[in-house]
């Protein structure tokens, strides 16, 4: 197969890490340790994933292992969101619910309607790409809703004081946060193929798949991502804004997080 580079190939590719380190030293960027650490981590993490995938994808094993893997991905993604947006209340459970809903919807469409055949080999990468891409948008929208409602407290309370429900008072800020979080995904979808060849397609072509076949898979993946990112951000945006109001439509006190 074209894509089998072997251990020797992998070792040779490390030369490029060497180039990065050399450049860093030459320009005194002070990033050598960081680069080496990043490359080592990437290698170890990917190898570990590869070993586990090797076992899970083995045709002899039950699909349950693949689902378990997907569940673990959802939990880890929610934990990452919690770690990156610690000031947002309940963000772990909200994003876990959002990722789960997006997984059910998007994987339901792709497998339920027979776009892909349900097998571990399709399930794990598709779920991974879905969660991985939704994560950044989810972190962005969670922080944005929180910061908007905290920093524009005066405006929000002015609306509440005019008799708005908390949902109506928060709507402009939730809308702005959602538009901000979704725009990159929409822009990426617009220019796909023009500027960069996306990862799925690149991987398939490297692995020897016909370009037109690769393109079909890539298009389906882009649409999966669009649906998944929209679902997760909408759930998280609405969820966070609800957490910031009391049942009697008061905006809760929000302290500024201590400086990092």
């Amino acid at each position, binding site marked *: 197969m074209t894509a089998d580079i072997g251990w020797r190939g992998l070792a040779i590719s490390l030369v490029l890490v060497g180039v990065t380190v050399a450049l860093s030293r030459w320009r005194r960027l002070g990033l050598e340790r960081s680069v080496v650490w990043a490359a080592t981590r990437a290698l170890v993490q990917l190898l570990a994933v590869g070993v586990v995938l090797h076992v899970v994808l083995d045709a002899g094993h039950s699909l349950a292992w693949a689902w378990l893997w997907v569940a673990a991905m959802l939990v880890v993604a929610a934990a990452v969101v919690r770690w990156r947006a610690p000031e947002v209340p309940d963000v772990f459970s909200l994003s876990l619910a959002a990722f789960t809903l997006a997984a059910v919807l998007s994987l339901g469409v792709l497998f339920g309607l027979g776009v892909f055949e349900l097998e571990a080999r399709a399930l794990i990468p598709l779920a991974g790409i879905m969660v991985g891409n939704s994560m950044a948008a989810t972190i962005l929208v969670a922080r944005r809703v929180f910061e908007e409602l905290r920093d524009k407290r*005066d405006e929000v309370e002015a609306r509440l004081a005019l008799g708005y429900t908390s949902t109506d008072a928060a709507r402009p800020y939730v809308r702005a946060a959602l538009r901000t979080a979704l725009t990159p995904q929409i822009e990426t979808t617009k220019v796909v193929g023009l500027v960069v060849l996306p990862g799925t397609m690149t991987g398939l072509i490297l692995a020897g798949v016909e370009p037109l076949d690769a393109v079909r898979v890539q298009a389906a993946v882009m649409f999966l991502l669009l649906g998944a990112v929209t679902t997760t951000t909408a759930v998280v945006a609405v969820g966070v804004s609800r957490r910031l109001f009391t049942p009697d439509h*008061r905006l809760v006190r929000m302290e500024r997080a201590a400086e990092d």
Partner: protein
Amino acid sequence: MSPWVEGRARVVDGECDNAGIDDTLFAFEHVGVIGPRGPLLRDVDGQLPAHGVTVIVGRSGAGKSTLLRLCNRLEAPTTGTVRFRGDDVAGLDPMHLRRRVGMVFQRPTPVGGTVRDNLAVATGGLDGKAAAAAVERADLAPGFLDRPAHELSGGEAQRMCLARALVTAPEVLLMDEPTSSVDPESTRALEGLARSLAESGVAVLWVTHDLAQARRLADHVLVLVDGAIEYAGGSAGAGEFLDDR
């Protein structure tokens, strides 16, 4: 000398009641509010009258804004009960309450768009005539309606906010240091508007730390010190509290 010295004798309830309070608008029963950094109000007991301008005075941090925000449920008491015309505020629909009890905040709170857009935020169908009447009630010319809200001066923006609060035809207007960020001319205009609103039957609760302003405006005075009521009653009996010499 500062009028806020510790150790001043508290005015007993009986003395408060005969100072011009005929019917009660808001009643506070053992109200305490705990904020993130400690108590904001402690065991507040008292009434606010349904007529005229009641000025709530006190130093910054005395709990004035908290007391005001309890009246339209932007704040909820940690302990005790707040009553609006006899009803426990906790049991009222907050949206309905807030349309009966309007509020103007310390800083103007335009929401973007023109003055007309800002007024429309308060109500769905606001026709041209109603919009013109609303700005006129706040002493602004109808020409202001099409001006972008963010181009208004602080005083004009604050009057627009007053006009917006009046669109819901409230029975009570809460004014939380409304003149703290406006010029002297607008301050006088807002004070005049508060007086004429009170004369037209809308009770005004006005928070300030400016004792001269309190003397100019007040029919009734409520003095807060460290989260507790130090005096509540008619302005005539509040002399020593409003004397800043």
